[in-house]
């Protein structure tokens, strides 16, 4: 096999630009996804049917269908509805946020339910309200337990963002595809992409391991 390093070198600036987009899209999505996921997760744990039902459906839908399909629905359906036109970057962030919220909701739920019921009871016995208990007692503890699954979700999200190449969001995979179609080559673009993704996810997992030990 004639592996052409020259075309990789040619594309390095664009691949790096794409990597920055990948990182940016992922960070924004995990932020929005976490906020939305917390709301959905709390809704799913609620005693009230009118909160529990729709949030359950939300989680089932976003966890139960391929991201690919969700991307197409957001890109061609949701974004044009609000903006009047398509926009691959906004669609990427919206789709990935909605999708990861489904997973984050379950992470929040599991994290909260992993806290000993005694903590809640102790807070209640002191006269604290449900909201005060959640805010000052449960969430601070739950969030610490959520770091590992949260980290996994972030890693998944970075890899999933590669799917946005199909709606031409200018992230890492998009430029790999451009390289492929210019030179009719598969290995050079995709092995390079794999390496970059690996560096991203591996450093992230090391970072998270470090945070986990520190907290």
């Amino acid at each position, binding site marked *: 096999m004639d592996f052409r390093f020259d075309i990789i070198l*040619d*594309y390095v*600036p*664009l691949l790096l*630009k794409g990597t920055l987009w990948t990182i940016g899209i992922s960070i924004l999505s995990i932020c929005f996804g976490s906020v939305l996921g917390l709301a959905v997760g709390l809704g799913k744990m609620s005693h009230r049917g009118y909160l529990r039902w729709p949030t359950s459906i939300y989680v089932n839908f976003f966890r139960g269908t391929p991201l690919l399909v969700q991307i*197409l629905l957001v*890109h*061609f359906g949701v974004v*044009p509805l609000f*903006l*009047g*036109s*398509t*926009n*691959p*970057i906004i669609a990427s962030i919206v789709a990935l946020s909605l999708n990861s919220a489904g997973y984050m909701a379950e992470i929040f739920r599991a994290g909260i339910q992993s806290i000993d019921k005694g903590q809640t009871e102790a807070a209640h016995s002191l006269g604290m309200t449900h909201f005060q208990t959640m805010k000052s007692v449960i969430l601070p503890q739950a969030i610490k337990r959520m770091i590992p699954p949260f980290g996994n979700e972030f890693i998944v999200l970075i890899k999933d963002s590669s799917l946005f*190449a*199909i*709606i*031409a969001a*200018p992230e890492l995979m998009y*430029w790999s*595809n*451009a390289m*492929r*179609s*210019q*030179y*009719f*080559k*598969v290995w050079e673009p995709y092995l390079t992409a794999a390496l970059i993704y690996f560096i991203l996810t591996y450093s992230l997992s090391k970072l998270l391991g470090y945070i986990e030990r520190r907290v």
Partner: protein
Amino acid sequence: GCGSKDSGGTKVKFATDAAYAPMEYMDKDKVAGFDIDFLAEVMKEAGLAYSITNTGWDTMLTSVQQGKEYQAGISSVSITDERKQTYDYTAPYFESTNMILVKEGSPIKTAVDLKDKKVAVQISTTADTLMTKIMGADNKSLKRMDNNTLALMELESNGVDAVVADIAIIREYVKNNPNKKFVSISDSKNFESEYYGILLPKGSDLKAKLDPAIKKVIENGTYATVYKKWFGQEPDTKKLLDQK
């Protein structure tokens, strides 16, 4: 790049799927290719400001159909009756035919020989449509790959006996891989000529502006210059102009 909000202004916004070298592809971060150069000449002739964005295939199809964000698409789209139900086209601007690519020493000589062989095509292309007709929609030996690069890799790795793709693609590939011992076969009997047109939403008023410009560019020799730049030979402009 990303599109701007204002679609009703002066600029005509074109969408393309720049993954089809040499017709249209990304040369680093710029869209390049025959279609792109040709479009530049046409828009100059028509006196219209325009921009072109790489949106990918699906986005192009959907958004041109709506006609709101992108008013036209140029991406080696063959004019077929099926597609005419959903879209309008400008006058044809390019004659293409599908070609077969096989390894040296292959017994395959014509398209009919492909019937019981394994064949790779790019999904959604006219090559896909043609081979679906010859081999049947649910034939497992017909591998509809995501893109032509994968189809050609499939041939290299002995996954298929032949690849069918647009002549420009096959030529570009052979040019890029001179030492790989591939043979390209044209079969004008089974693979009729097809014509590319610019994709427009149904009832678009752009057709009235673009058609004369396309005619002019072909007639005044500009077309031939661009064609030669990309394919190194003279186009058959008479045949193109005769098409309706």
